[in-house]
């Protein structure tokens, strides 16, 4: 079944096939496969879900149901940098909301959105467990702690120029 997303990149497709072969016989294979598929493609395009459905013999509706149930799976491509601002309790009582407001203002997008240039995606995440550094945000794997709204513009501009 050669559909657009799958046919566009044969290397990624080969990786996906490998992952499915690796987990296929295991009980409860769907979650690990979706995790890995998202690592490969950056998101879970419908074509990929369809292919997994055929390979595992699970109805597409079930796969779509799982993919949309968990907040870490995404059906939309993300920006180059994903900004996750922690909205856990410790961060919230220390002013995470104000940092988030500032991020929305600086990036001019809402939570869950991606900037038009495809550079930034803004997420309000669950507790990152770095409560000692509250309030905290992550840009991809880099953690920024003890933030105040005044820090935001400086941090974002570093990534803009890259």
């Amino acid at each position, binding site marked *: 079944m050669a559909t657009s997303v799958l046919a566009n990149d044969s290397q990624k497709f080969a990786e996906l096939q490998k992952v499915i072969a690796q987990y296929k016989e295991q*009980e409860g294979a769907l979650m690990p496969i979706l995790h890995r598929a998202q690592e490969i493609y950056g998101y879970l395009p419908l074509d990929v879900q369809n292919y997994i459905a055929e390979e595992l013999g699970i109805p597409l509706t079930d796969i779509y149901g*799982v993919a949309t149930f968990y907040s870490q799976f995404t059906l939309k491509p993300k920006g180059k940098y994903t900004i996750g601002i922690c*909205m856990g309790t410790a961060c919230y009582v220390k002013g995470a909301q104000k940092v988030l407001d500032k991020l929305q203002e600086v990036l001019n997008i809402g939570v869950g959105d991606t900037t038009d240039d495809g550079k930034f995606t803004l997420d309000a995440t669950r507790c990152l467990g770095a409560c000692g550094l509250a309030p905290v945000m992550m840009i991809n794997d880099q953690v920024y702690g003890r933030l105040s709204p005044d820090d935001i513009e400086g941090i974002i501009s570093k990534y803009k120029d890259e």
Partner: protein
Amino acid sequence: MEFYRAHVLVCGGTGCTSSGSTDIIDKFNDELQKHGLQNEIMVVRTGCFGLCEVGPIVIVYPEGAFYSRVEIGDVPEIVSEHLVKGRIVTRLLYHDSITEEETIKSLDEVGFYKKQMRLALRNCGVIDPENIDEYIAFDGYKALGKALTEMTPDQVIDTIKESGLRGRGGAGFPAGLKWEFTRNAVGDKKYVCCNADEGDPGAFMDRSILEGDPHSVLEAMTIAGYAVGADQGYIYVRAEYPIAVKRLTIAIAQARQYGLLGKNIFDSGFNFDIELRLGAGAFVCGEETALMASIEGRRGEPRPRPPFPAVKGVFSKPTLLNNVETYANIPQIILNGPEWFRTIGTEKSKGTKVFALGGKINNTGLVEVPMGTTLREIIYEIGGGIPGGKEFKAAQTGGPSGGCIPAQHLDTPIDYDSLTQIGSMMGSGGLIVMDEDNCMVDIARFFLDFTVDESCGKCPPCRIGTRRMLELLDKIVSGKGEEGDIEKLELLAKNIKASALCGLGQTAPNPVLSTIRYFRDEYEAHIKEKRCPAGVCQALLRYIIVAELCKGCGLCAKHCPVEAISGERRKPYTIDTDKCIKCGLCMEKCPFNAIIKK
């Protein structure tokens, strides 16, 4: 094992890693190499020391010098002064780790550690979690050896039952009973699962154990497998914890290599293996039936109980499910005996509890105390009190399922039952401190917002009921509250508690109920006086110029974008609250701090 004259322990927990401890470790290795000391001094990446507030933390032994907030630029100095010349860099020591005579206190003497009793965290910050030999050197896998070679499965279960250990995940169900139910369940195949889906915001106890001492959990699960008759284990861990996942993966591989997982462990004929399963960001998966659905690769939706997991769990087989901290206690109970464990704690809650201290507190971090310790001891003696001389208002325990504990209960000895009695719950152990600047209605709204977002949608009381509650709270914080809204909240709460399907829904109203119980006056101020006493709820704030402080410079009026400020030069100005859009610019611009919001 090679001999080293000094050890440099660097915290590799999430908190310290976030503030750059990995680069610090690399720098130490570089600098030691430069001085030719790489064979004399060893750098160890450990798990969490607990005192995240002053991270990154570096402790140098044999002296036990506790360096805090270490920056990469400090490393050459520590190496050349301390490790080469033997002169401790006093400027970098944690302030409470030195005596008045400038000598180093032992860690047990430091205020933060003095009242603590580290059982579940015993190896965190002590050993290298990526090295199984270090775990073994600290009696690791000795309990497994004892269980497999000297005890019958029934004896193991009796030991756990006698110890009085209760589940550390929240509800506090006696662990030994769960083990017995699973053992007695009929089935050809059984599973042992570990709930490491620590979803409560502000809780990071389990993460620190997995990062700092992963083998203790593997060892305990294997003991549990032997006791209940299972040969397969699953650890369901949050995908948000990359370091924990990495260390668990390493630990499982090492245990397999040493024959501590796999076939015929300790030549006993007992087989057991463990697999990791990653969550994908759904709070409800911390609920046991939802967690099992997720392991099976389905949507994480809870189902009614009974049947309980002990009878029908993962893949419909009898399953034992405990959380990380519960397991971390098991090896020591086996080694030291149930009587030893029973001497710690209160009458009905034995042992210790790990709390994640966060919010408005000086020593943010991870603490472990015997059950029965009071909140006051935790917050003021271990936690170092509230920053900025502010007044304590409430402590939130139990996350979105728990409640807020006000100042009048600061002296309550904490255990499962006392917390329930005062309208909160133990939960997994998040403890968030709030001061006078936090609005309790806003906090209740924050938690409801969380549960509405995380409700799986299966049962209407939770899906619809919590949303109605959130709407009422939104109304109140935006100044549109009406008489009777509090009563409506209480009625909804009562009905949701009685009718929701799972623990998430049944406890979702708790943050609202407990804040109404202790801070009803704040709700009433929002509703009747349209006032937020803590000055948090934006819609209810008013900006006021204090006439005595105003010098009449006119700067505020010049900057006001809606011309809401008027007055004559050199005389106090006033703000027209009807025109004011509450942007706060005037307050920012006033050079005399004459503008306040309340």
